């Protein structure tokens, strides 16, 4: 909320600097987000009196004015029509600067020399009003330098009012807090409402409320014989500085009183109210209603309606109807000041999509005890500004409520805050914000809560008030009294830590993507309808179609990320992501699963002066997974894959204990093209839940063998149809003395030739050549028994 300090000063004496005030409001919980210093954006402007106005001899719409500045008489050509002799006006003399870059010069206007110009409020940067010349109050003496006058200066605080503090949505509401800070008491505006005439409002207008829960208080007052006109400068300036736009004196007064006291008001053309009656009803069923902005609004059951004898004339608290609005012809006016149920207003405002200054205040809850006062205040101002006669009396329905009381003990307060605030200080703090202690005992007291504080309902609310008035900076920093218990890492954390450590050590950059992707991604990856990855969870209100559903697989976002980098000149990438995927389950359930995704492309390094690094291939991604699994104590195997998006020459499923835990391989090039990627990408995606279940991080020492190892090399011709893994497994199975089987060469001439190195090791003794030779024969025998394998001599 924007609060001009000049206005605030009317209710409380601001005897500190605006910066200090802003800081202290902020530390009270009313954060001042901005502090706008209004300084004159002009120079060389002085006040003058118009002594003479003549028509311009050469132009119909110009006049030639004589201006007395107290020292001299100057001739000025002027185009405005709102001026008359004896008006006090701002005169920008020759050399005056207006705004950033306009300097007033001496110039001839249609043959007549003009020694300066008369200014509008807009030209002086005071308001947006450019309809005519700014007429100064008579109290300004001719010759005064305008930049020195108080009207050119102010500071506007931009206060961020917390959503529960509707009572601070007015200058007076802020003044109450400021008064508490400055140890003063905020004073309401002082005025005397003069009502005349024989009639009484009670005789002229009827009022009925059908549901006092929807509207517990409604006040109607009448004023007759008003004339619509622009508001005076002081009111327009305050309204403008508060962020609203001046319209005319009647509308401006309703806005002004709302800004001043927080009470939204509504003005009806009294003559247009059928049967001179107002009924507050709650709508039953749907209908349409044309609001004053000429839009037909759909009304629904539960909306609060203000009706006359023929039907709705306003949607309560939100907007008036076209049928009863004030027009230029309005003479007699009925003013509504009321309290509407905040929940109803909020529901209607939300449904209609109207968030007005009025509905905002009704939604937060206004001061029900202030409804009558605000009506009188508005009547007084309207009479001052628009003339007419205020009709005596009023129509009012007010269903009074019990005021809330709360019992609280001093140990409640100091116990929760960790403080030693004295009883006196507590009482003083509460009294400063109009929370009064009605009853006291040795432990605590009963406090009564004023009706404008909708946020206070229980002891915690009272403690909050005391804490912020006491000042958070005066509450000590303490350590909790409970014993500090060290926290063990969970199994999941230990696994994730190891995985991250592994990825870092193996050159992977971690990436983080959004959890959403597009249905198109599922199509791109050719996921069949019966695959769980096509059971996506859609978002009702996505930001865009690209992020329309929760992702069911990681790889599409990882590919996008690779494409992003490849497009920007990177060629060699190693990415890894840990993230969640989401699936729709039967019966409306949703499951979440943590996944690991790896993607590599290019080669380890673009170049090196020593050697050329080979391009990544399938075995790089496979090795990455194998190394990780070994690190986590998981034994995994590869199997033929059916993943539709993998290049089937270079893809595999990753199996753990016969369960598919993921896949690894090259993504099909036609799919890569959909992501605008032209180079081969090797990826793997793994289910973290399975790894977590099957993994083993137990560390257990095994004695280091005391006897030497022996090695033997073998070469076999192996048919392409025989997987090498079968040879390795076969050899390993021959004897526990065989501790490792490695492949150190593979080439293809007419047949595939594979060379293997087998390591023999005993924990009991040194293996003799005879024993190793026997094992060697056994290996050759067992392997050559297999179809498609023969020994290479």
């Amino acid at each position, binding site marked *: 909320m924007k609060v001009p300090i000049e206005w605030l000063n009317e209710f409380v004496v601001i005897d500190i600097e605006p910066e200090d005030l802003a800081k202290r409001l902020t*530390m*009270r*919980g009313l*954060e001042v987000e*901005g502090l706008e210093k209004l300084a004159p954006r002009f120079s060389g402007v002085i006040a003058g009196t118009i002594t003479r106005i003549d028509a311009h001899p050469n132009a119909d719409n110009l006049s030639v004015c004589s201006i007395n500045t107290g020292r001299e008489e100057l001739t000025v050509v002027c185009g405005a029509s709102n001026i008359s002799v004896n008006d006090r006006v701002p005169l920008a003399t020759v050399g005056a600067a207006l705004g950033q870059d306009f300097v007033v010069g001496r110039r001839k206007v249609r043959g007549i020399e003009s020694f300066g110009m008369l200014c509008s409020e807009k030209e002086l940067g005071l308001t947006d009003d450019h309809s005519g010349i700014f007429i100064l109050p008579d109290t300004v003496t001719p010759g005064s330098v305008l930049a020195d006058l108080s009207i050119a200066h102010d500071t506007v605080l931009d206060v961020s009012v917390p*959503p529960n*503090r509707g009572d601070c949505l007015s200058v007076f509401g802020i003044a109450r807090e400021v008064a508490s800070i400055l140890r003063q008491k905020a004073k309401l505006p002082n005025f005397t409402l003069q009502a005349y005439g024989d009639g009484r409002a009670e005789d002229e207008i009827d009022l009925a409320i059908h549901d006092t829960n929807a509207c517990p208080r409604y006040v109607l007052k009448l004023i007759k014989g008003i004339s619509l006109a622009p508001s005076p400068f002081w009111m327009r300036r305050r309204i403008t500085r508060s962020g609203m736009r001046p319209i005319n004196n009647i509308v401006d007064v309703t806005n002004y009183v709302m800004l001043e006291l927080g009470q939204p008001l509504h003005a009806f053309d009294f003559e247009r109210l059928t049967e001179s009656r107002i009924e507050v009803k709650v709508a039953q069923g749907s209908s349409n209603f044309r609001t004053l902005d000429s839009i037909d609004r759909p009304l629904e059951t539960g909306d609060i309606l203000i009706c006359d004898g023929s039907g709705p004339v306003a949607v309560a608290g939100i907007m008036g109807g076209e049928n009863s609005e004030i027009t230029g012809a309005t003479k007699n006016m009925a003013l509504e000041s009321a309290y509407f149920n905040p*929940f109803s207003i909020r*529901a209607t405002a939300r449904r209609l999509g109207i968030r007005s200054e009025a509905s905002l205040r009704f939604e937060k809850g206004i001061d029900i005890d202030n409804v009558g006062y605000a009506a009188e205040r508005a009547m007084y101002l309207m009479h001052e500004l628009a003339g007419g006669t205020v009709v005596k009396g009023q129509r009012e329905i007010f269903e009074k409520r019990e005021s809330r009381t709360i019992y609280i003990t001093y140990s409640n307060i100091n*116990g*929760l805050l*960790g*403080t030693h605030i004295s009883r006196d200080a507590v009482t003083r703090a509460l009294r400063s914000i109009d929370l009064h202690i009605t009853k006291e005992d040795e432990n605590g007291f009963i406090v009564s809560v004023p009706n404008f504080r909708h946020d206070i309902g229980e*002891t*915690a*609310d009272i*403690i*909050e008030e005391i*804490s912020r008035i006491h000042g*958070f*900076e005066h*509450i*000590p*920093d*303490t*350590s*909790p*009294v*409970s014993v500090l218990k060290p926290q063990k890492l969970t199994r999941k*954390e230990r696994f994730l830590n190891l995985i*991250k450590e592994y*990825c*870092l*050590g*193996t*050159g*992977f*950059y*971690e*990436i*983080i*993507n*959004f*959890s*959403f992707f597009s249905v198109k991604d599922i199509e791109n990856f050719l996921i069949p309808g019966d695959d769980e990855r096509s059971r996506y969870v859609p*978002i*009702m*209100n996505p*930001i865009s179609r690209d*992020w329309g559903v929760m992702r069911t697989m990681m790889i599409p976002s990882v590919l996008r990320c690779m494409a*992003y*980098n490849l497009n*920007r000149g990177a060629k060699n*990438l*190693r990415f890894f992501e840990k993230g969640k995927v*989401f699936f729709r389950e039967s019966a409306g359930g*949703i499951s*979440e699963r943590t996944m690991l995704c790896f993607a590599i492309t290019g080669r*380890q390094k673009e170049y*090196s002066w020593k050697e050329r690094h080979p391009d990544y291939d399938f075995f790089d991604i496979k090795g990455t997974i194998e190394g990780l699994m070994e690190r986590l104590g998981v034994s995994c195997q590869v199997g033929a894959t059916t993943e539709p998006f993998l290049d089937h020459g270079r893809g595999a499923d990753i199996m753990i204990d016969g369960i598919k835990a993921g896949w690894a391989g090259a993504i099909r090039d036609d799919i890569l093209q959909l992501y605008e990627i032209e180079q081969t990408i090797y990826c793997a995606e793994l289910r973290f839940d399975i790894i977590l279940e099957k993994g083993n991080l137990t560390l257990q020492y095994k004695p280091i063998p005391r006897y030497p190892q022996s090695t033997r090399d073998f070469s076999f011709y192996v048919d392409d149809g025989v997987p090498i893994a079968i040879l390795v497994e076969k050899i390993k199975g021959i004897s526990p003395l065989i501790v490792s089987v490695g492949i150190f060469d593979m080439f293809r001439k007419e047949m595939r030739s594979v060379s293997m190195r087998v390591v023999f090791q005993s924990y009991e003794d040194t293996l003799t050549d005879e024993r190793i030779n026997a094992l060697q024969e056994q290996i050759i025998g067992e392997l050559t028994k297999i179809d498609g394998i023969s020994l290479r001599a």
Partner: protein
Amino acid sequence: MDISGLKEKIDSEVSRIGNIEDLKRVKVSILGRKGLFADYIDQLKTLDKDLRRDAGKAINEIKSWADVRLGELEKHFNDIERQKREQASLIDITMPGTTPVFGKKHPITLTLEEIIRIFASLGFAVAEGPDIETEFYNFESLNIPSDHPARDMQDTFYIRPGVVLRTHTSPVQIRTMEAQLPPVKIIAPGSVYRCDNDISHTPMFHQVEGLMVDKNVRFSDLKGILSIFIHDMFGPDTPLRFRPSYFPFTEPSAEVDIGCVICRGQGCRVCKDTGWLEILGSGMVHPQVFRNVGYDQEEITGFAFGMGVERIAMIKFGIDDIRQFYYNDIRFLSQF
């Protein structure tokens, strides 16, 4: 037995050694199994006891002397050889080295781990919850009523009525309190979602929620714990302030600000000229939240806090566009 002239003989042979091959040959001819000394030692056996002792002593002295001479010479030739080899393999040490490959953690992870480390050292355990939450856990149970503006479709992603992408990690508070009795001391890191996408908002971001519930947990404890956190995270001299604020699920509520790291409190664009940066929200758990989970709010109290991980990372690393975290540009990632 005549050993006179032996020393001179050896000396003259040794002085004629010109290279390592000569040395090896001479060494064998003098000290070898069939060398010069072997002869003498054979002859010693023929002498009688007294003479043998004296002659043996003299021979041993000459032998030790010869050992040292030849040893020195060997070292000399080895040094020359090494120098030659080193000269031959001279490299340009200014050529670039071969760095091992290494990866990097995402800055969000770095920041998250740092936050978790600090709170773990203060006795907080990590707790988790689902990303897709019910409105009950995300809103109602946290005292956010159904007509609260935060629940608009403009702010919250809906999966279907009643089910949302969590807008904060606070639901983990509720899930944890429902599952266990006090004392509770947890932090809950995770992804959260809001309908926003601009220079300072991404539709997904990360939060860490904290909750401590026990007998006699005080607002002053909240201040103490969060001060320790901030001074560990941003340095011991970081100015900080607790400022009254409003959250539906805490009361009293406090916003925690740190002195602007850009302008050091002088006021700049980043801190909107206030000299302060909002870093986290916190407060004493609202009694209604305790009632919602069936805790006896007369018996126990607690505090909760929540912070945006990206925001902390942005302040710590000086990042000015939150979307950078999610482009995953290698030129960005490699900086951390």
